[in-house]
């Protein structure tokens, strides 16, 4: 058995050519040589998975690429996708002391990618503990970064882990939700395939969302790790939201990444200004939509997206409409959408519509992108696991929930952060699961 894959799509590759192309070998060595090799390096401290950054960089400089990759994979099994998708500006590279020296941080993300690409090119599979030391069985619900990290860590230490994924392809948002110019679905799947070959079991297209299923899992497995992520994207809550031509951001992104949407025409409007909204707006541009508007009910200084994402969207030609609130969606009867909006302003710190400022935008695609909602259905069924505002309550350092047989990490706990946060949480949970098993055994 192999991890399912997607067919190659040259048109997709062309439209979504890589934002940051890889470093050539010599360029990587030059950059690696520039690293000061700080003691107790701030980049390592800033990384949620605490990758030994100077350690892997100096291994690139010495030509020990295998050692470099293993150093990364030691703590971050998704080192390849993190190298591509991490917002390094606010993590490792943002902490680099070179910013205070000559203002040019070391290109840690690209160096990490260099080491990881070499590792995957070699075809090596990470070694796991020789013979399973424990009879412990762990089920990981969800096939995204948190579960992958948890399962891989358990597997490396001799514990059989089984991942349950509701979709046809594993990898979660890494496969379906990241802009293709940052991370190709095929690269995400390559990473999962390595984890599968380490011995992790996968059960695809199994949706765990009923009490009966959980009960069955509890009898088959000793411990259940919840890496289920978040639920569907939030609705705008305005009339006409189900009109044809309305498609939420994650749906748009997964559709173009899996080849179900290959081209767009006409005007696209994205509602929201987070990182996913920006990914969707850029995607609409690259798929052919023109113009692409991004509507946000607050102002430019309130934009939740990272600064570098905002700058990137401007370069892609996305036009921003600030302080604009959607009111309703209508069809014009000829296949186009009419989006009624109103201008907002701040009055005593509350955002209020400006009277008589209604304005209608005719468009061909409307993309709500105002965040994901909690995974309500499954969360309701969890017995003995404390939940607050739709989020599973789990200890940050261990992933322990209020039910000793359940652990959790990733977006379903933190409400939606980055891949690297999910990997860190998943791995911490695996270590805690092992520790608890050892304690019980003793």
């Amino acid at each position, binding site marked *: 058995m192999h991890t399912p894959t997607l067919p190659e799509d040259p048109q997709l590759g062309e439209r979504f050519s890589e934002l940051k192309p890889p470093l050539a070998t010599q360029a990587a060595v030059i950059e690696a040589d520039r690293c000061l090799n700080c*003691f107790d390096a701030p980049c390592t401290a800033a990384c949620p998975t605490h990758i030994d950054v100077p350690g892997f960089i100096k291994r690139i400089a010495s030509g020990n690429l295998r050692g470099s990759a293993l150093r990364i994979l030691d703590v971050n099994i998704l080192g390849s996708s993190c190298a591509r998708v991490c*917002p390094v500006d606010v993590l490792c590279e943002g902490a680099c002391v070179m910013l205070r020296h000559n203002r040019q941080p070391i290109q840690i993300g690209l160096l990490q990618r260099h080491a990881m690409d070499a590792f995957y090119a070699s075809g090596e599979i990470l070694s796991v503990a020789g013979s399973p030391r424990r009879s412990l069985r762990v089920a990981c619900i969800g096939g995204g970064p948190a579960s992958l990290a948890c399962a891989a860590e358990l597997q490396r230490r001799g514990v059989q882990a089984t991942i349950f994924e509701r979709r046809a392809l594993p990898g979660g948002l890494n496969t379906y939700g990241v802009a293709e110019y940052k991370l190709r679905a095929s690269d995400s799947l390559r990473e999962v395939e390595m984890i599968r070959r380490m011995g992790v079991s996968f059960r695809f297209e199994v949706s765990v969302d009923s009490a009966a299923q959980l009960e069955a899992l509890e009898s088959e497995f000793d411990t259940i790790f919840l890496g289920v992520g978040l639920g569907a994207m939030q609705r705008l809550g305005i009339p006409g939201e189900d009109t044809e031509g309305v498609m939420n951001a994650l749906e748009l992104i997964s559709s173009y990444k899996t080849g179900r949407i290959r081209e767009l025409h006409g005007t696209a409007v994205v509602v929201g200004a987070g990182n996913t909204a920006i990914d969707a707006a850029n995607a609409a541009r690259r798929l052919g939509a023109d113009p692409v508007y991004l509507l946000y009910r607050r102002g430019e200084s309130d934009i939740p997206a990272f600064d570098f994402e905002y700058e990137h969207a401007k370069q892609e030609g996305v036009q921003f409409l600030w302080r604009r609130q959607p009111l309703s969606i209508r069809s014009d009867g000829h296949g186009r959408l009419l989006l009624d909006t109103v201008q907002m302003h701040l009055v005593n710190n509350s955002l209020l519509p400006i009277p008589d400022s209604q304005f209608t935008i005719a468009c061909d695609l409307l993309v709500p992108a105002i965040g994901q909602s909690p995974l309500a259905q499954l969360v309701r069924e969890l017995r003995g696991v404390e939940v607050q505002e739709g989020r599973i309550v789990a200890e940050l350092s261990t992933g322990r929930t209020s039910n000793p047989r359940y652990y959790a990490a990733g977006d379903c706990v933190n409400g939606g*952060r980055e891949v690297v946060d999910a990997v860190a949480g998943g791995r911490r949970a695996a270590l805690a699961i092992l520790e608890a098993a050892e304690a019980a055994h003793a």
Partner: protein
Amino acid sequence: MPDISVRNFAGAIHSPNPFWLASAPPTNCGEQIMRAFDAGWGGAVWKTIGEPVTNVSSRYSATDWNGQRIMGFNNIELISDRSVETNLSEMAEVKKRYPRHAVIASLMVESTREAWHEIVARADDAGADGLELNFGCPHGMSERGMGSAVGQVPEYTEMITAWVKEKARTPVLVKLTPNISDIRAVARAAKRGGADGLSAINTINSITGIDLDTLVPRPNVDGKSSHGGYCGPAVRPIALNMVQQIMSDPESALPLSGIGGIGSWRDAGEFFLLGCGTVQVCTAVMHYGYRIVEDMAEGLENWMRSKGFNSIEDFRGLSLPRVTEWKHLNLNYKIVAHIDEQKCIGCDLCHIACWDGAHQCIHLDRVSGPVNGPVEVHTIPAVREAESRASIAVTPVMRKERAANPGLYPTPLERIPRVDETECVGCNLCSLVCPVDECITMVRVDNGLAPETWDERSRGAACAAEPKP
């Protein structure tokens, strides 16, 4: 405007500046040397002339460091592979066209009086301004009884120098090999033989490296290699030491042309300060071409202007009295490291260098408050690293989270190291590893003690131990 022209070696060799090309590939032929003079070189020592040789390919290898090419350079090339006639007729042509520049003939022939007399006469006839006897080449030629086979035996050096002096009408320089335990032994021999000057150093025996794929050392000549002569920036400190040894020894000291890793006016300045009157350059030219001389000359002039020196003689040898034996150093001179926290970027390399490579007196305890004292009262580096790896870090995804982190400036206090001055021995290590200019300085501490050397202290102890009559 300072005058950097020089008149050297019994006053008989003059050149518009003290920068000469060493006897090596950059001086293979007249065409090259004329281009070099056009580029600004003051003199050139011709690639060693003698019975033509057959060279091998490949001939060179190098040591790179941290991404920088040719920190050290190695060659197994022999002397000129062109006939004596060709070399000398081109030399005559060069001298005719460039009468103001110094052209030195480097010579190497079999160790007989007749052979030396003949080549000396021919070189002088060609118009050479001086002769340089190659007693230094450490590979190939030495197996044939020439080069360093002569330079490693003081008696041979003295004898051949004397033969040459019997015949020479121009100044005679002896080029010394560093592949000997005390370079002064050969320098003294050359002086006894009547040499007018010295050139030092020639290349150092070396194997620069081994190809880890083929297991063949470099340079690879059909699967085998041979030791070569090492030069380039890496050898400059060794050359400076030998220059100082020669120039501080009255029995060795002669007008000296300094050689060894010189590539800039700064390097050259150091050789002049230890007594050299001219310098010779090879590797830097092989790396970058003749054009580097422009900055060498300009930089030297600008430095001389800032120091108020009008000629090379104004500062030649000024640093020699500053080099002494260890026993004459002041044991009571005390300095300690001082970290400028406005400049510190928080790399903490000084901390780990001091802990692992020095005296465990630079600490990361600015937040918990200063605690002076021995190692035991401080957190060791491994514990500190383990603490950071055990901490929880999350991506600041929300705007307000990013706002709560004020960013990089200034360097967080917990990353600015503190020097425990009571424990600091003033070794310099931290200031050497610090990547920021002027961030760590060594500051003198007045300990109220009068200067005292080990020599004085041990003599004092010896006097005290002497039985009183």
